[in-house]
């Protein structure tokens, strides 16, 4: 029995003494909430946004240093080195707490770095288990660290604002996981949202206004390299064509009346269907959109069936031209198969794909695109007639 007891104690001691080696209290950790990677000549510059819980003004932090005296609750550490990881280590030298990446939910890639290719930097994001594969990836217009320095008064951290914007950018926001997946897939190229700085209108007694962050179109890739930035109508068109647009709003001239009408389409289904005759590829894109009117600036009465019908037609036409303009840009200018025509062929006609896969880059710009749009307005909101217009001014 004494032997047994000794064995017990040794086991217990071994258990307890070998523990604790990686013990890290919450307040010994520097939470990286967002980061940006840029390229400066041959070196990488990484910028880490570190949350400062002491400045967050949480309950029970009265004793904490500083309190909430208007200081920003984050701190940006920035340094450059030969590799991404090395530059992080450079920062660790100047950060007294252990840099902890598990709460990094946005990863921003600078435009310059993206143009040089993002293949080399993906490895570090996957190799350490601490890194979240579900961090959203965005491209910054200009160097990334500037955007991390924005005031972003709406959210606690600029990184948080970037995250919220990224979530709204697409139906399936692109995370590190998706990005790697898309780089590795044949017949489809990467599209990422762009964020840029924006100045707000200065309030009374304020100088220069506050800087915030805005979603500013789409960054289009060919393989792992950024080839172009789309914005406005073209960006919307590409998203619509991909079926990734979140609640797109379409504004049209009211048919047969004066003024404009805006409709929103929460329900959109997009079907891609390749038709192949010899070497001629035709891609049919069928878009079915149903939505509601959210603004009627015109004098058109929407209660009339023919008015509604005409309007639906014009909406369909507008969506069609938007999509076509986006795809034209992709095909002609950036040679980026963002919608994944190649992948559609691979999925639906795998035998045909074998013929094209080797020379897809040449084939892609020649693909004929046929867009077919059906729109359906389910209702015109809470109003039928234009609100606040005299009857005699209303176009029936």
């Amino acid at each position, binding site marked *: 029995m004494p032997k047994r007891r000794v064995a017990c104690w040794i086991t217990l001691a071994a258990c307890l003494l070998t523990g604790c080696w990686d013990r890290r209290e*919450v307040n010994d950790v520097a939470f990286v909430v967002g980061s940006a990677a840029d390229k400066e000549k041959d070196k990488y510059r990484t910028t880490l946004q570190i949350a400062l819980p002491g400045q967050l003004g*949480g309950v029970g932090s009265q004793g904490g240093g500083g309190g909430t005296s208007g200081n920003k609750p984050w701190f940006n550490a920035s340094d450059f080195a030969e590799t991404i990881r090395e530059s992080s280590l450079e920062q660790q030298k100047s950060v007294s707490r252990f840099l902890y990446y598990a709460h990094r939910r946005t990863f921003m890639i600078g435009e310059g770095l993206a143009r040089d290719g993002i293949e080399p930097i993906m490895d570090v994001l996957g190799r350490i288990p601490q890194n979240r594969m579900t961090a959203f990836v965005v491209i910054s217009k200009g160097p990334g660290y500037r955007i991390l320095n924005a005031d972003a008064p709406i959210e606690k951290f600029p990184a948080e604002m970037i995250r919220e914007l990224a979530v709204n950018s697409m139906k399936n926001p692109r995370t590190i996981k998706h990005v790697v997946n898309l780089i590795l897939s044949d017949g489809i190229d990467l599209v990422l949202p762009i964020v840029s700085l924006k100045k707000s209108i200065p309030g009374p007694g304020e100088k220069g206004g506050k800087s915030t962050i805005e979603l500013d179109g789409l960054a289009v890739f060919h393989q792992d390299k950024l080839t172009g930035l789309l914005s406005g109508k073209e960006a919307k068109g590409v998203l619509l064509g991909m079926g990734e647009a979140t609640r797109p709003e379409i504004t049209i001239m009211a048919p047969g009346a004066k003024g404009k009408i805006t409709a929103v389409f929460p329900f959109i289904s997009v079907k891609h269907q390749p038709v192949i005759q010899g070497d001629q590829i035709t891609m049919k894109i069928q878009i079915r959109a149903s939505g509601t009117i959210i603004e009627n600036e015109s004098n058109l009465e929407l209660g009339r069936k023919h008015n509604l019908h005409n309007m639906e037609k014009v909406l369909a036409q507008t969506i069609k031209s938007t999509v076509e303009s986006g795809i034209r840009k992709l095909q002609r200018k950036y040679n980026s198969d963002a919608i994944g025509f190649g992948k559609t062929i691979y999925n639906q006609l795998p035998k045909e794909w074998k013929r094209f896969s080797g020379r897809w880059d040449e084939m892609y710009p020649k693909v004929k695109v046929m867009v077919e749009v059906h729109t359906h307005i389910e209702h015109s909101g809470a109003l039928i007639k234009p609100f606040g217009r005299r009857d005699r001014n209303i176009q029936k």
Partner: protein
Amino acid sequence: MLRFFRKRRNPKQLGRDLRETNQSQVNVDEYAANVKDAPVSSDLDENEQRVKEVFDHCSDIVFRRLVINDETEALIIFVDGIVNSDHINDNILIPLLLEYTTIPDHVSPEALQEKRVSLTQLTRMTRIPKIVDGVLAGNVALFVTGYEECLMLNVIGGTRRSVAEPSGETVIRGPREGFVENLRTNTALLRFRLKSTRLKTKPFIIGEETRTNVVLAYLEGIADPGVIEEAEKRLKAIKIDGVLETGYLEELMEEQPFSPFPQFQYTERPDTVAGQLLEGKFAIFVDGTPFVLTAPVTVWQMIQATEDYYERFLIGTTLRWLRFIFAAIALLTPAMYIAISTYHQDMLPTTLVLSLAASRESIPFPAIVEAMIMEIVFEALREAGIRLPRTIGQAVSILGALVIGQAAVQAGIVSAPMVIIVSITGIASFTIPKYNFAIAIRVLRFPLMFLAAALGLFGIVIGMVWIVLHLCHLRSFGVPYLSGISPYQKNMMKDLFVRAPWWNMKYRPITFNKQNRRRVELQAHPTQNQQEE
């Protein structure tokens, strides 16, 4: 560590105990004969002398000389206070002193029993030690000149607490009677509920000085005879100077004394005991305590409350689940908090981990120290609240909650989340209906906290594996502690995680009951009958 718990009696040991038991019965007589074994003498003075020697310096013993029918001298001896003095007056003294019926021959004890004493329970005894025993148990000893025997008149009485609502196990719905300190009242409370000839109540006397009456109650033909035999064996094997509470017997009879988990259930409620007997378990009553032991037990019944069976089954099941969840919370929350906040910060939502970090910013201690401070203070508060009179107790808890909760956070000694964790844990541990099981859970929380502090979630898993292994290993009178799940019994599933409606619990739980299995008629529910027709 597991071995530490494994110390239990082996069967051989029990056998030896049994053999000693027979000797111990001899010992009982020897004890009584401390006084010297002697027969009752025909000389009254000699008898009085002998008994007085035994009861030397016992001021509560009353010796009363009297004369029956003007001719025969007699002596009564009893312990003042434990006998019913009304009975003595009305049924012994008045008939003996005032009545003058002719008694043929002489005034013999036999004649007195037949003609004079108007009591139902009386015996005749001839040995002094037995008589001493009887007197101590609340009998009146009546010696008559010239006869070598003594009449023992049973007039047990004395003031005892009356039946009241059990304060430890209150219910919203259900009987409000609770056991009292009087054994006879307690068995009567049970008999009120089980008017069955199957209900057997076997008497034992345990405790060489206390001579405590103990009763083993069970339903013959429903309880497992093997278990009953084992219980009798263990009861007989007990040799101790005194039994003041059922807890003594619990410790002397349980299989694994080092386990934190109770291997008996105790209750103050007669309806609970009746319910347990109907499932095929047995109960042990001890004179002088309102707590009755029942066994064998399983871990599941520790989380079940009496009311589960009285409320409609949907409600019973819901409440049972609530308790299961809160039992887990009571056991695991502090450990989880420590593990997550010291090792697994990645497991929390970012906003939560940041506000956690914010509230911990000024805390000087690591999470485990913080948790220990709060948990110990909480346990102390609870303990203080129990020991104090009820009115002050509440004040203490409120004061403690305010002072400890608010001030400690403001002073930066503990963080606000820790206060929340400790309060949730406290509330959760109060939802467990069986106090002895709740204590086990509360105690096991601490090793889990240390394991979490040393090894994180991995440590919690190790701890839980330990606990589950131990539970698998644990037995109460040969019945596996986890029976129902391990070994799996389909029949018992109706009363573990859910409480099946009464018309559906057709058989008694198989682990306790091997014979006479049916509990409810097949077509117990009106709708079932209609379907038949």
